């Protein structure tokens, strides 16, 4: 399990690097090498580390460990075929991590990131819609049952495509440079992670790598089903490529527009699930 966890972290970081490279190439820039995010994680591990004088010290440090802890838990739930509801819970609780990062330092930029994280709460509802649609069709929220259902009835991607779109949008909203990435947009420096440097930032990079891997693997398992290991990695790569296209071609939205669009998407998805519940 531990070697697989390490692989997941580094592969997640590699995917984030590929994401950056693809965005750059689509925008006709050379872009960084694809292993740039791995280098970032290693570089920050050995840089000088401090805690700002205005910070809540215990929270400032603990939130890094909590971030890594919750995504490690999500990873183990996923590979042991546990409840999709726990993955959903961990995804939502990642918001608390963003709050913790943003608010613990006393920095106004971090604070803005934290407040934006609160107002973008609508982005989580499509995930709930996706989970509900899966539950309606498969009658279970255990990932092992969902995979077994797809082995018999075919991938859920073709049965409930809008639910897959909902989860895709959720993953998109968590990727860097996404139109919905208002919590870390450049006008507030780096948003919630502005003040976390050195080893704390390395911890955050590790969390981001693991989070990307877990979210992409969740999509693959829940909407495509059981695949050989290389097939899973290839699917994740294709997902990242499609996300990179969206990120490269869509500007980052203003907080108001981001929340408005996410709320509209949420409304459409809720109607879809109600339709599935009645006629599905």
């Amino acid at each position, binding site marked *: 399990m531990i070697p697989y966890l390490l692989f997941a972290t580094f592969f997640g970081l590699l995917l984030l690097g590929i994401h950056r490279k693809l965005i750059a190439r689509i925008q006709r820039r050379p872009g960084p090498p694809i292993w740039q995010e791995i280098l970032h994680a290693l570089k920050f591990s050995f840089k000088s580390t401090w805690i700002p004088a*205005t*910070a*809540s*010290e*215990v*929270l400032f440090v*603990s939130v890094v460990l*909590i971030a890594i802890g*919750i995504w490690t*838990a999500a990873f183990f*739930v996923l590979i042991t075929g*546990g*409840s999709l*509801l*726990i993955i*959903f*819970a*961990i995804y*939502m*609780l990642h*918001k*608390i991590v963003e*709050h*913790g990062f943003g*608010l*613990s*330092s*006393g*920095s*106004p930029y971090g*604070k803005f990131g*934290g*407040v934006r994280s*609160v*107002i973008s*709460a*609508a982005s*989580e*509802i499509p995930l*709930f819609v996706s989970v509900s649609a899966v*539950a309606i069709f498969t*009658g*279970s*929220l*255990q990932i092992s049952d969902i995979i077994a259902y797809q082995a018999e009835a075919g991938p859920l991607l073709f049965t409930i495509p809008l639910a897959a779109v909902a989860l895709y949008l959720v993953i998109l909203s968590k990727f860097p440079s996404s139109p919905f990435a208002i919590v870390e947009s450049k006008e507030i420096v780096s948003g919630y992670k502005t003040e976390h440097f050195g080893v704390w930032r390395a911890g955050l990079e590790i969390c981001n790598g693991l989070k990307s891997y877990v979210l992409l693997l969740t999509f693959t398992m829940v909407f495509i089903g059981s695949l050989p290991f290389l097939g899973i990695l290839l699917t994740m790569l294709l997902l990242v490529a499609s996300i990179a296209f969206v990120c490269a071609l869509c500007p980052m939205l203003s907080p108001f527009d981001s929340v408005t669009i996410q*709320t509209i998407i*949420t409304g459409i998805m809720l109607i879809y699930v109600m339709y599935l519940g009645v006629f599905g």
Partner: protein
Amino acid sequence: MIGAGGSPFMYLEFGDIVIYFSPYTLSLFLLALVFTVLVIASRPERQLDIAFGADAYTTKEISLPEMRFRRFMAIACGLASMGAMVTGDVFDFCLFTSLVGICNVGIVAAVRSRHVQNAAYQYGLVALAGTVPLFGGAAIVAATTGTLSLIELSKTVLPAAPAVAKGFLVLGVMGEGMAPFYAAKAEMFRAPGAPYVIMCSLSSLLIFLRVIEVVLQM
């Protein structure tokens, strides 16, 4: 749907009130516990405010009496959240949820900022209104099924709780600070003093996550 959050592996009985731990409820409980411990152990941040148009900034210091009061409310909020995460009784869940709403207002009540006080007042009104569908939902569950025990409700021998009761429970919890009723909560976040203000957000998220399991159980 029985065991939506995994099968329960431990029961604690207090008379007819049963607390149960499943992988899902235990995960949520542990997170509430971790943040409550952080609230106890942490000193609050000192928020920096930039003076726009000038090369200056100010630091917001939190006085000791204010810190004590807010810490007390944040701990109470953490305890109420923990109770809501593991309770096996719909009425107790509603009670803990209401308590979370009260504590959330209390956490920012001592902050001397007009914006924060206004936001807390507006949030308090929405949370107060949210308790009507919340307890209404519990009442409908009791009236239609004859029990409020989630363990009994998850058994298929009882009539299923009506969809309107589930909808009321979710609506009540959304009133405690979830989208689309969270606008005031974002303003409350302007209050200095993490980790106390984080409890406002954490408790709402946890309760929303738990109510999903509660309605799936019924």
